[in-house]
């Protein structure tokens, strides 16, 4: 284990630096913004300068910047992301309401896409330069290049406006008070289109990566060794090549799971899905600075921590990494 400990320690340190970097950027972006929080909340209203000054004192905006920075960092560290004056509630409460909805949308999409993408990528590599390969390549290219917000619009026009099969907005039917199974089915019905949009994009990404990674593996000499030992082509392909090609795929799966919170902004906006992305959009429209910043910090922290976990897991499994 002596080889692993310094590596993990180094990665922990690196992640800590990144976390501080994210919070610091967040703080200074908001503090170098034109005006201060008091001004952008009450500047437009007819409020006397004395009242504004008093408010600044209450909120600690008259203290030195270094002290404010320290207060902000300790607040964020203890889970206090500030208070949304626009919505009149703590930012963390707003986030807690929205995060699960985003995960409900993203987790099934990414997992479905990873499974499907690996299958498609593998087929494409096994039948390299045949029609099957070209069709999979074309489907991935289209999925990979299609802006999610536009695919969403196309699906809405086809399945909702024209065929009237599926709902287009929100997470559940407005005004309906379904309970139990009926509620679950209602939400699932609302999930179909957004999940389809997200899945296609991720599917394309996974298929492309799997194919490229398999092609690279299949040129390596150990496959020749495996064939010389007399293994069947199927064993060589699935037992050796696919297994080694799965490493970059798993890394990408981890990275996407880490970016889940930030990944669905456009899709959520188009489908009015009440998650993190929709929250970001409405915070921008309402000029709700604390919420926009909190989304940046929370999604950044999620990415950094997921990356850390992936790297540590790999260093335990794969001896090549520690010494690289």
């Amino acid at each position, binding site marked *: 284990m002596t080889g692993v400990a310094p590596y993990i320690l180094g990665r922990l340190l*690196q992640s800590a*630096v*990144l976390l501080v*970097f*994210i919070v610091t*950027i*967040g703080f200074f*972006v*908001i503090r170098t*913004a*034109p005006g201060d929080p008091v001004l952008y909340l009450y500047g437009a209203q007819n409020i006397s300068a004395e009242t504004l000054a008093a408010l600044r004192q209450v909120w600690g905006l008259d203290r030195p910047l270094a002290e404010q920075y320290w207060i902000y960092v300790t607040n964020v560290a203890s889970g206090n992301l500030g208070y949304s004056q626009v919505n009149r509630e703590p930012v963390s409460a707003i986030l807690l309401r929205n995060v699960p909805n985003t995960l409900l949308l993203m987790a099934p999409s990414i997992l479905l896409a990873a499974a499907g993408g690996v299958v498609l990528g593998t087929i494409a590599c096994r039948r390299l330069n045949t029609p099957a390969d070209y069709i999979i390549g074309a489907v991935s*290219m*289209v999925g*990979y*290049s*299609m*802006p999610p*917000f*536009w695919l969403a*619009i*196309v699906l*809405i*026009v086809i399945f*909702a*406006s024209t065929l009237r099969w599926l709902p*287009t907005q929100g997470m559940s039917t407005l005004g309906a008070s379904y309970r139990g199974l009926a509620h679950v089915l209602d939400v699932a019905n609302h999930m179909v289109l957004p999940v389809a949009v997200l899945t296609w994009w991720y599917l394309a990404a996974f298929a492309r990566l799997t194919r490229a990674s398999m*092609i*690279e593996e299949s*040129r390596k000499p150990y496959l020749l060794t495996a064939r010389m030992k007399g293994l069947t082509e199927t064993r060589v392909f699935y037992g050796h090549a696919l297994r080694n090609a799965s490493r970059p795929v798993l890394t990408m799966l981890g990275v996407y799971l880490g*970016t889940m919170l*930030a990944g669905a*902004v*456009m899709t959520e*906006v*188009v489908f009015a899905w009440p998650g993190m992305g929709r929250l*970001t*959009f409405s915070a*921008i*429209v309402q000029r709700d*600075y604390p919420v*926009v*910043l909190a*989304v*940046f910090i929370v*999604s*950044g922290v999620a*990415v*950094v921590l997921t*990356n850390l976990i992936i790297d540590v897991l790999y260093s335990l499994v794969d001896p090549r990494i520690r010494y690289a």
Partner: protein
Amino acid sequence: MHSVLADVWRVFRRQRAALAALLALLAIAVASPSVVILSQLDPEAISVDVLGRPSLAHAMGTDYLGRDILGRVLHGVNTSLLVGAAVAGLALTIGLVLGATAGFYRGAIDHVIMRVADGLMIVPTFFLVLTVAFIFSGRLAFVIVLLGVTMWPQIARIVRAEVLALKEEAFVLSARAVGAGDVRLMFRQILPNTLPPVVAMIALLASSGILAEASLSFLGVGDPNVVSLGQMLTSGLEYVTNAWWVPGFPGAAIFVLVILLNMLGDGLNVALNPRLRRGAS
């Protein structure tokens, strides 16, 4: 260099999809600005023909103010092309300079540059750009700078790795032996040889730049003084069920630009990346 170019062209030419994409992009890049300039299209000209279906007079229909959508799409395409070229150029320049510096001098400066690059590759930069543009300014030039400044790390990584390898090559060592200085070594001997793998990235940088700008203006953090495809999409969103052409065509334009650039990028990658070339030729 001439034979290298000819060699690259020989492989690239056989990538039929990429070749078609290149020709289509060139056609769009010539036609769209020319039409806008020659016809003096006013993208803001309104008419009484509100939400009109696509017709002979208006090939893509009209929007909620009766503005001709085709004219606005052409303006938007020009904006997107500008964004793609500028973002790719900026990211490329920053990546080349920082990557070459890191690989050539090693030591502390290498460490600092590469850690910043790692950081930028991990932090969700779209959210960073979104937040900064939201708080400060959505002006097109500012958005382009923000995107360029966050998109260089991949280029820097590639350039650094190439420089590390090239530095020890015989032709560089012999140039150094006859007295060539650092700058001369860098620009005459090393950088030209790092270009092939980097050039393959340009199309992909441009396509992500275009998509990022479209997404920002879609979210309302764009330049209100510029016609942007993303902004046309958002403002047309509420008409999606009764006038699909209002958000439909701007979205299709983004899709076409992005897919052409991605196809071009794939072809360039095969032609310029020596590891892939062995399999292709």
